[in-house]
């Protein structure tokens, strides 16, 4: 057998082997994390997976996915990037100053100038993505409690984007949804005898916010009533 034929056989063998090796399953890494709601019902779960990567310095690549299942979920980093790219496209991101000392970052596709926003961002629902923005001047200078396990880093901001169903009850709340083409708008708050309540209606789903002491708790999404859908102009 010639050297060329041997090499070819080896290459074919390697390709067949790579094809035949079953893809490693996703591991559920949710643990005690406070995960966002899913528009289709229930909480999202966080999944992780390592896969072989010949060109990676570590020899493997690490994947994360959130949703109902690993395979059907989306990459949190990409999800956060898409949400902030939406704000950029709508001209909102650039109304905030460039973050001091953060330089410019390239994500391979574009050059990003990280922004300093006077808000904390929390993803409270996926599919469709809903992000709550809480006014907090401390966010500009990275002051305040921050749980790295409950956040996703992003080059778009000088802070991470948090996720979960609890939001401190300080500062006016806004929300936006790239999936519903909804730019930031104040969360509708009502104050009654039962306390304060907030409501976010998006694509036929209502997210209720209930205030408990110093925090807002985001309740599971419910099907929106007709009037609520008409009032908000749902994309459904």
């Amino acid at each position, binding site marked *: 057998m010639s050297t060329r034929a041997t090499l070819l056989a080896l290459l074919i063998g390697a390709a067949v082997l790579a094809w035949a090796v079953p893809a490693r399953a996703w591991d559920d890494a949710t643990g005690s994390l406070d995960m966002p709601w899913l528009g289709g019902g229930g909480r999202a779960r966080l999944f992780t997976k390592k896969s072989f990567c010949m060109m990676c310095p570590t020899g493997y690549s690490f994947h994360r996915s959130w949703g109902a299942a690993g395979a059907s979920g989306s990459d949190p980093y990409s999800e956060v990037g898409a949400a902030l790219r939406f704000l950029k496209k709508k001209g909102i991101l650039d109304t905030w100053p460039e973050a001091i*000392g953060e330089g410019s970052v390239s994500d391979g596709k574009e050059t990003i100038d990280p922004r300093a926003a006077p808000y904390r961002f929390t993803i409270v629902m996926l599919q469709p993505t809903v992000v709550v923005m809480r006014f907090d001047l401390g966010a500009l200078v990275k002051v305040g409690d921050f749980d790295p396990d409950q956040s996703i880093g992003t080059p778009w901001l000088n802070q991470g984007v948090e996720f979960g169903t609890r939001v401190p009850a300080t500062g006016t709340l806004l929300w936006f949804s790239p999936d519903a083409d909804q730019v930031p708008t104040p969360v509708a708050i009502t104050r009654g005898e039962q306390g304060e309540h907030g409501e976010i209606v998006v694509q036929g789903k209502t997210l209720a916010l209930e205030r408990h002491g110093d925090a807002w708790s985001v309740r599971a999404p419910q099907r929106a009533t007709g009037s609520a859908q008409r009032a908000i102009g749902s994309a459904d």
Partner: protein
Amino acid sequence: MRFPLLTIGLVAMAAAAHADYLGDRARPIVEASHAEIRAVHLGRHMARGRWEELLDETLYSLAPKGKWGPDHPAWATARAALAKALREASVTALRGETGTWIRKVVDEHYSSLEPDEIARAAAYYETPAGRTFRDFREKVLAENAYGLPYVIETKSHETMRTEMEEARQKLLNLPDEQTSQVYEFNQSKTGELLMGIENNIIADVIGNIMRSELGALMHGDDGEAIARAVRAAVPNMPPQSPRVYLGTVTMRPDRTLDVVIEYHDGDRLAGTYPFSYAPNALHWQDVANGVPGIQPGEKRFLYRDPQGRLSDKP
């Protein structure tokens, strides 16, 4: 496994041997010119701005701006106590790793001279003329850096000024032959090269090392002990606050609120974020809640408590 370990070992040995080689090569001129202490004084001089900034920033980290400042009765005493504690820590650092780095910088740059230049310069510094010049230069640098970290003087500033003046007079009144020697050496290629290395390269590099190391002192293991020492020495300084200073709020005549948030990074003011909120803006009330009763033309400090609430009370 053995091979990588052996490789690492050989690389480490080679690096150490290289450092030894530079040190051996530079030693005659480094020792004869007292290059190391001159480098320390030059570095201290270069770090002066950072030192003053660090003292103020550190005091504001012990109690926030608005609770106190240069006009507060305890400020000057606390600043002196902080300076003392930081200087002691800096001297300890100089005896350790900081000192090693300085020695390496000095060795590396002085060894760049040719061996005959090193010999000529070392010989000059051993002459009465060279020693008089060296003594004056050393005293000028030491006097200039008086009170700064990395050295704790045992003499008063006044005494050091007097000694510097005596050294100046001695240099100015050298016998003619020795005066010529001083001029000739300092205007020779070697003399100019040495002065250039000292005033430009060494001063810059050691200054950078010292600026960086000073900033690290409060954030290292010593930081808490230094803070405790300052509080113990100055009982009337304001207590620590759970609120963090953010910046200022000013109300315009039309009641627009101008907010300036200060971003401090690495114990220095890195920049500010200005925002304006008109009375009909969404977040005007958020800010106004933190500065109750603010009137047009008034300016107040702004703080944030751990829960994220704004306040004008430190």
